[in-house]
């Protein structure tokens, strides 16, 4: 049994991935505050360190030193478990996201730019993304608070509804690429990115992804004007920070998936000659998608809940299905 290839290398990769994602989360919160501020013609955080660059550190310290408050009559086990249940799926999805097809060799072991390439990658992504809902539902239920519960109920219906058009939009890609493996899906985009083949699919996926990641204009679970803070009402300190972390890592994940599925993953000019460029392209594309998500947050108001559900079931899902039928027909006839 070659324990280095089976345990050590994936372990180190996972560790690196977690560290990168967590610091990515910290600086994403900074970038978002800064960008939203500039969209509103303000400066944003600029006091902690040069250009406010130490702001995430200050936030983290503040959160860590907050008093640990557990309200009376909460369901302690699930109350404490829920924040972790939000963060873990957000991190676990990254196991299958291919950052680049480049690989290098250290002491005879080939090291790739992804943790694993499983042949049901797409299913895995959808399944794990669905798991994130549990953390929020349990948080709302265990908090013993009407606002939390209402927020959690909204999240459940929202996330379950939007998973459908998202899944259907991704099935169209499956029809084209003929594989569930994310590496194969990206490889199929070497000549033509799927956003050009599947513009409607991309639109549906992007809207559904915004709803999945609880981003504006679909941040109904925490509508602060009617639900205080939704499912996170009773959480404070580090437990709240975990929800925050989950939400932001989800945002990175959703952007990375959009890049993988529609924007050609690591492909770009000169990648065949210099494979390591793929990492740069991937990062750039993810950054662009994240920018658009923040831009949307700065521009659009939140939709009403009935509009949200109606839009999903009466418009997005039929659109995705139509897109799938047309794609399947075209592929069957000329593919």
């Amino acid at each position, binding site marked *: 049994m070659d324990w280095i290839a089976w345990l050590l290398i994936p372990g180190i990769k996972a560790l690196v991935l977690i560290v990168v994602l967590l610091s990515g989360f910290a600086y994403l919160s900074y970038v978002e505050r800064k960008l939203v501020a500039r*969209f509103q013609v*303000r400066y944003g955080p600029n006091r902690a360190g040069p250009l406010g660059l130490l702001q995430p550190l200050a936030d983290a310290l503040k959160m860590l030193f907050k008093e640990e408050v557990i309200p009376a009559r909460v369901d302690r086990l699930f109350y404490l478990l829920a924040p972790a249940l939000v963060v873990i799926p957000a991190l676990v999805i990254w196991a299958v996201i291919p950052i680049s097809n480049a690989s290098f060799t250290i002491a005879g072991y080939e090291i790739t730019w992804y943790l694993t390439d499983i042949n049901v990658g797409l299913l895995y992504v959808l399944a794990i993304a669905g798991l994130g809902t549990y953390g929020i539902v349990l948080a709302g239920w265990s908090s013993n608070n009407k606002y939390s519960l209402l927020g959690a109920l909204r999240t459940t219906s929202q996330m379950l509804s939007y998973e459908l058009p998202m899944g259907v939009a991704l099935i169209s890609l499956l029809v084209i690429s003929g594989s569930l493996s994310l590496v194969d899906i990206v490889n199929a985009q070497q000549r033509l990115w799927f956003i050009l083949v599947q513009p409607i699919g991309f639109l549906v996926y992007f809207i559904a992804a915004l709803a999945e990641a609880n981003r504006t204009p679909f941040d109904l679970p925490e509508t602060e004007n009617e639900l205080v803070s939704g499912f996170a009402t009773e959480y404070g300190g580090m437990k709240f920070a975990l929800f925050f972390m989950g939400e932001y890592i989800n945002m990175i994940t959703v952007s990375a998936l959009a890049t993988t599925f529609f924007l050609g993953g690591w492909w770009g000019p000169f990648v065949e000659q210099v494979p390591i460029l793929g990492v740069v392209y991937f990062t750039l594309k993810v950054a662009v998608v994240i920018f658009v998500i923040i831009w*949307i947050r*700065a521009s*659009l108001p939140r939709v009403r809940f009935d509009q949200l559900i*109606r839009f999903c079931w009466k418009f997005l899902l039929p659109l995705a299905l139509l897109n799938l039928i047309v794609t399947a027909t075209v592929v069957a006839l000329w593919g």
Partner: protein
Amino acid sequence: MLRQIFPAAIEIARAMWITLIHLFRRPVTNQYPDEPVAVYPRFRGRHVLKRYDNGLERCIGCSLCAAACPTDCILVIAGENTDEARYSPGERYGEVYEINLLRCIFCGYCAEACPTEAIVLEHDFALGVYDRWDAIITRAELLEPHTPPHIVVRDDSDWRPTAAAWQTSR
């Protein structure tokens, strides 16, 4: 549904365009402790007791300011001027002059009531103190010329009422 989707999409595009333009604007934030705040000349901030050009105090201790004060935050106790100790041109001067800034509402009635234009509301707004008793400013503090660095007085000579303000004022 479809009839709503297309106008909505156009509106979304317009909203996104507007925010994108604003992304490249210079922020309008005033970085207050680092940059001074520009206030209008009519801005009413902390009081100052004025002097004549020859250095004598304008205040004659008449207590009209205290009488005019709607919140009763001014205390004036007059003292007699003598030839050895002359503070103001007249018979009397304000020997004790205290303003409780926690009660003051900065209405400016004291300045209007003052017959010698001794008390004036100037522009300082940074009036925080660590001790409640420090909020009562005394004669000695009021007589000091008070031009803190965090405040600049802006020019309002080109100010004209807007059309709307003009209409309502008529």
